[in-house]
């Protein structure tokens, strides 16, 4: 674009676009949004990073000075280590289940014909827009002591089980919340796939399984990877699901930060855990970005 060109050139009819007349236009246009984001994203994150290095006095509740003790606590204290490990375990499990359910489901959806395809895509994706509190509450009713799942277990002669406030429940509810994030990227990469290629493999005598493993899978792998990273990142920072279905004992990183801030009032400790969570998320996302870019460069090069 020619935003820096001087106006000396004779104006050709219809060629005089606003950019040329006002080189400062992008500043005015993006200025208000940039100010908002500087004030409410960059500043608070910076303040929180600073806060995480402050000392905290339990007696007076005052903060100040400089210390690394909060970060040290996270890597040495059994309590925090256990919570980070649990968060990692639950998120990894939820991600794996999302792959196992989401990838075949996206494949099945892509082989349907309209109107079923649009209807079921809506059914799978629309729960994404319903508040997560409502979905967590739904699961607590389904899995509660008087809920239909326990009813079925009793009817089958297995007997009542205590399902709520267990890691299993948290994983199931997380899978429910995260599944659309797996279906979307896999679906997108399936849309780019030429069905003729799979047909060709079949017509050359490949079995259905071979065609899927050797032809379809490699092409949708970037979609699966993208979905896995999104699901893992969102699960690791999930708050409402462990908060409502994990009970008091089963803490995850997000619920611990909440406790530090609103019960213990140890803001610097909570800030340190939040900074670690943010750093982990950014590393995952940037690694993914690198990987995808590398992937495309290899394909183009």
């Amino acid at each position: 674009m020619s935003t820096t060109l001087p106006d000396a050139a004779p104006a050709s009819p219809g060629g005089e676009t606003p950019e040329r007349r006002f080189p400062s236009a992008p500043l005015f246009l993006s200025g208000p949004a940039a100010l908002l984001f500087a004030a409410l994203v960059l500043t608070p994150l910076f303040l929180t990073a600073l806060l995480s290095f402050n000392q905290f006095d339990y007696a007076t509740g005052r903060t100040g000075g400089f210390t690394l003790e909060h970060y040290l606590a996270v890597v040495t204290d059994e309590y925090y280590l256990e919570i980070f490990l649990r968060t990692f375990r639950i998120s990894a499990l939820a991600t794996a289940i999302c792959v196992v359910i989401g990838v075949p489901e996206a494949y099945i959806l892509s082989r349907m014909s309209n109107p079923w395809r649009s209807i079921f895509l809506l059914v799978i994706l629309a729960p994404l827009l319903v508040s997560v509190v409502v979905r967590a509450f739904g699961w607590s009713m389904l899995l509660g002591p008087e809920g239909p799942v326990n009813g079925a277990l009793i009817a089958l002669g297995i007997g009542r089980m205590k399902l709520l406030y267990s890691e299993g429940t948290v994983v199931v509810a997380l899978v429910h919340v995260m599944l659309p994030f797996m279906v979307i990227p896999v679906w997108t990469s399936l849309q780019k796939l030429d069905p003729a290629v799979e047909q060709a493999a079949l017509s050359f005598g490949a079995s259905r399984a071979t065609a899927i493993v050797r032809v379809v899978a490699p092409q949708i792998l970037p979609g699966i990877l993208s979905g896995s990273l999104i699901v893992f990142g969102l699960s690791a920072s999930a708050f409402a699901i462990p908060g409502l279905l994990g009970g008091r004992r089963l803490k995850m990183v997000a619920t611990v930060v909440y406790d530090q801030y609103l019960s213990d009032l140890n803001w610097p400790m909570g800030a340190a855990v939040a900074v670690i969570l943010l750093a982990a998320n950014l590393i995952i996302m940037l690694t993914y970005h690198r990987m995808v870019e590398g992937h495309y460069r290899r394909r183009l090069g």
Partner: protein
Amino acid sequence: MTRNGPVALFFHALVVIFMLAPLVIVCLVAFTPENTLSLPTRGFSLRWFEAVFHHPDFVQSFWNSLWLAVLSATLAVALAVPASLAITRYEFPGRGFLNALFLSPLIIPHLVLGVAMLRLFAVVGAAGSFGWLVAAHMVIVTPYVMRLLIAAISGFDRSVEQAAFSLGASEATVFRRVTLPMILPGVTGGWLIAFINSFDELTMSIFITSPSTVTLPVRMYMYATESIDPMMAAVSALIIGITAVAVLLLDRVYGLDRILVGQQ
């Protein structure tokens, strides 16, 4: 096109049941005549919906959430339209950085944004202010609006604008009569998705709402951690209803698959 086999369709049915079960049970239990969370086996009753409308805290939180969502969606669109014009149409220093900054709330966990905002509000003395809560919500809904607007603006033919300019229309007229109507589906779609996201937001809001600005999801979370009765189910059913209306509107205006899955 090859068809799905019976095994595939069975698997698909299980996934659909899994996705819908928690929402369906909430809507059923909301109509129970009993005092406990149970399926309505002895007929339907609206008593728990009545209880919601007579519960001052829930009514207050509903209006808070509604105003918050309307204001933050509207203001976010007002900022995002010029910002996405700048990003799609101009080449300027810092363009890539601004683009990344405007989309960054998508990859920053809401929990981190929540504690960060809490810290900022404490420092500037804005704790509990509704105006600052609106600004915080603007930050989290703006990326959704920007994505749709950038797609809408880059996908349109600029020769129409050029024609209007060459016929002597002013900047303001071209924007009002040509540009805006052409990106209108992106604007309304962006507003609706912003509204839904603000209305549903829990994790950031729980850190920065005060007793007078508590939003509906935060109120429900607090309520659910203390006691659970069918009133929760009734509130949830109402939220599912509101979301369903918004989703249908969104589907009409913009196409839900286009918003959720992206341009094809």
